[in-house]
Structure formats: C-alpha cells, structure tokens
C-alpha cells in the first residue's frame, strides 16, 4: 500500500528578495516590501528586516520569519540585561545559527542574511540556509530574486573571488554611495523579471554614524 501523503503543507512561500553587501567601513542591507502567495499579492508594504546593532533581512515564509524575529528579539533583550550592552554582529550571527538549527526537524522556512559591522568597524555579512548553516561573506542575496541578483553582484562588486588562495577578505572596495546605487540598480533589474519582487525597496545602511533607512519605489506589477 503506497505511503499516505499529507494533503496540506505547514509552509507557504511569501516570495521576495533580500540582500546585503559589506564594505570597508559600512554595510548595506536591502529587502523588497512585497508579500505574496501564489500569484496574489498580500501586501505591498511589509517589513522584512529587523535591526539591533546589526540588521537581519529574511525572505521565505513570513509567519516563520516573524516567529524567528520574535525569538531573537527576546534573546537579545536577555543578553542586554546580562551583559549591559547590545549583541555584536558575530555574536548575533552565531545565535541565529543556533536558533535555526534548534528546529532542524521542523525548520523555520526563512532564508536570512545578517549584516553589520564587526568589532573593528569593518562591514560583515553572514548568509544562512533554512537550518542555520552560515558563512561570513562579502555579499549575499536570498529569496526568489537571488538567482537573478547573485550573478550580477559577482560581476559588479569587484570583490575578490571566494575561490582564491590564500583566502582574501571579501569586503567590496566600492564606496558607500556606489554600493547603494548598485543595490538600487540590482533590485530594479530583479523586479523586471521576478514576479515576486517589487513594490518598494527598503535599504538599511550601517556605518560608524549609526543606522539609517531609505526607501525606493520599484515596479508594482
């Protein structure tokens, strides 16, 4: 007798793309604000990023993303009470990985990028899969548009290739303003071909002056 299959799935994909790039003294994290299901749009104005001292942007199943964000928020508050300071980017990166792996056998359907400044003020980006495998990189994108975005970034960011030996520092030599321009171009292009990416782009920039947020309109179709 063939094995009985479930007739429903606990997961859904709400689409969207997110991405982060690290520079010498800044980090840019961006995500679109469209939330969809199937061929329908649920909202044009959702927020996929959340920030502490570093910023996490996620795409995938937004319910799991929200639950993951709430868990991290609670853990971050506990950390602040115990250590009297905010979590550093590398610390948050490890916590996120552990939180994801905790649900290894019923994962958060959440594809994350984490961006911030490391202890020396240099930009750092961490990229994750759904169960917490992570790596420090110079740039990364996740979500429905990532297949369109990544090759473009490999070409345009002029970061040293990750395949070089000895391993080079992966931060891009671009300046902050150039990197932000690149982000806008990248998302505008991704919105052209990826139906799940569009509406508005939220850009978060972290540098020595702090964290600031900007918005840019994208195609609404």
């Amino acid at each position, binding site marked *: 007798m063939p094995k009985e299959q479930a007739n429903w799935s606990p997961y859904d994909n709400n689409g969207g793309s997110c991405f982060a790039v690290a520079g010498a003294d800044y980090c840019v994290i961006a995500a679109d604000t469209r939330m969809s299901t199937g061929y329908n749009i649920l909202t044009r104005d959702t927020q996929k990023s959340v920030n502490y001292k570093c910023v996490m942007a996620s795409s995938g199943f937004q319910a799991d993303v929200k639950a993951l964000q*709430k868990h991290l928020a*609670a853990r971050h*508050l*506990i950390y602040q*009470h115990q250590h009297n300071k905010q979590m550093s980017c590398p610390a948050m990166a490890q916590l996120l990985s552990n939180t994801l792996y905790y649900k290894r056998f019923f994962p958060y359907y959440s594809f994350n990028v984490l961006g911030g400044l490391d202890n020396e003020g240099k930009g750092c980006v961490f990229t994750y899969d759904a169960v917490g495998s992570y790596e420090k990189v110079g740039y990364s994108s996740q979500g429905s548009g990532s297949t369109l975005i990544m090759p473009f970034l490999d070409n345009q960011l002029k970061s040293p290739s990750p395949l070089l030996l000895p391993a080079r520092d992966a931060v891009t030599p671009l300046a902050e303003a150039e990197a932000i321009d690149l982000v806008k171009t990248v998302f505008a292009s991704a919105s052209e071909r990826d139906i799940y990416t569009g509406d508005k782009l939220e850009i978060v920039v972290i540098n020595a002056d702090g964290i600031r947020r900007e918005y840019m309109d994208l195609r609404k179709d």
Partner: protein
Amino acid sequence: MFRNQYDTDVTTWSPAGRLFQVEYAMEAVKQGSAAIGLRSKTHVVLGCVNKANSELSSHQKKIFEVDDHIGVAIAGLTADGRVLSRYMRNECINYSFTYESPLPVGRLVVQLADKAQVCTQRSWKRPYGVGLLVAGLDESGAHLYYNCPSGNYFEYQAFAIGSRSQAAKTYLERRFENFTDSSRDDLVKDAIMAIRETLQGETLKSSICTIAVVGAGEPFHVLDQGTVQQIIDTFETAAEQEDPATEPDAATGQEAAAEQGTAADHGGSTDEGAAPMDI
C-alpha cells in the same frame, strides 16, 4: 524579646498569630541602605544610596531595569533582589512575546507578591530578604509599588525603605501632595533631596547615590553621574544663600508609612504590638 521559641521555622505560628521568620526578613530590609521612590501623573523616579563595603570595593547595584517601562530599586539582601529582578525581566519578556504589549505593572507586582508568599508557606524555603520598590508606567498611568518579603504589596505616591528611611519619609510626607502635578525635573530634584535626608549630615555627592527615571516617552534608565551632580550643584548653591529651612510640621509620631495617592491599603506601622503585615 521572647520571640525565640516560635521563630525557628517559617511554617510555625506564634501563639499571637505571627510568623517571626517573615518579620525577621522584613527586618533585613530595614538594615539595607536606603531606597526611595516617588511618582507624578506621568513619571516615576527611583533613588538609592550606594553603600560600599570599603573604599577599595565597588558599590552594590540596587536599581535594576526590568523592561522599558518598569524598573525596580531594592533594599536588603541584594542577592535576593538580583534573583527577583531576573524573574521580573523574564516575566516581562514572556508577556511581550505572547501579547505583543508591555506587561502592566499591577500584574507584575501581584506575580512577585505571590512568589514571595510561597516562601512563607514552605518548610524548606526561607522568605526573600529584600524589599522592592517597583516603578512603572502602563496604560493606567504611572505607578509605584512596594513589595514586602511577607508577600504583601502596596501602591504609593512616594515611599522610602531601608536604613534611615524615616527621615526621607518625613520629607516626602511634607511634599507628596504636590507630586502628582510635578514636572519631571522637579520630581528628580525631590528624589535627590529625599536621599539627602537619609544621609544625615554626610555630604551629598553623585558618587554615593543613584537615580533612575521612567516616564511617558522616556524608557526606564539610570541617570548618569554627571547629570546628577549638576542637579545637586544647583540646589546646594541655592541652599547656601537661603536661611536654614524651618522645622517640619508636627511629626506624625509612630506612623511609619508614607501617604497613598490612590485608594490602596495603608502600609504597615512599626508598632511593637501589631504584626507588620497584618492589614
């Protein structure tokens, strides 16, 4: 005092209907260094005296942030206070996680009081030896509560606990009627002056006191030493130019409790006859 026969166990009543272990725990609160709290309609200020064991050591942390909208000042066994603060922080985080809104102060103090009561009714536990002044803001306004080791709690307009707190209470009793409409800065000034009363002659410096504020639009935070010293300087210079202050109005005698702003119960008196937690 012949209390010794019935004071071995917290679960042993005395013939007069008292639990001596609980009363001894409240005694520990009175031995701790002073902590005061006062509130207006929109802000609550906590203050405490920093006691260090010796010149070489740092002073005990007596004011804890519990959440953005709640803070606590303790007097007594500071280790017990630390543990209870951790419990309160946890409760706030769990409530926020479930309800996406801040834990109302009144709920937190009830949970704290119930936790304290458990320790008065288990033979293998002892009461917490710490009094907590819980200051917080929620939808129903600004609140200041006092939680006893006995498991009782009371709401106050202003209160002081710990050693030499009577001096601060007298000061607060004179002025509490003005607190409701006080500005935030006046409230802080009153807090510092109340602390000065407990020092009884010792010079008031920002290094021996800690002040914390919570208010509408202002998350709970401890004021930094520089700010506090500035405020001290403003009224120390003013006081030098004035005549000495007149004596306070006729004392309220043995009344140890400060006044209430709302229709809450009275604080216990320190008369020898009545049990302190008997209301």
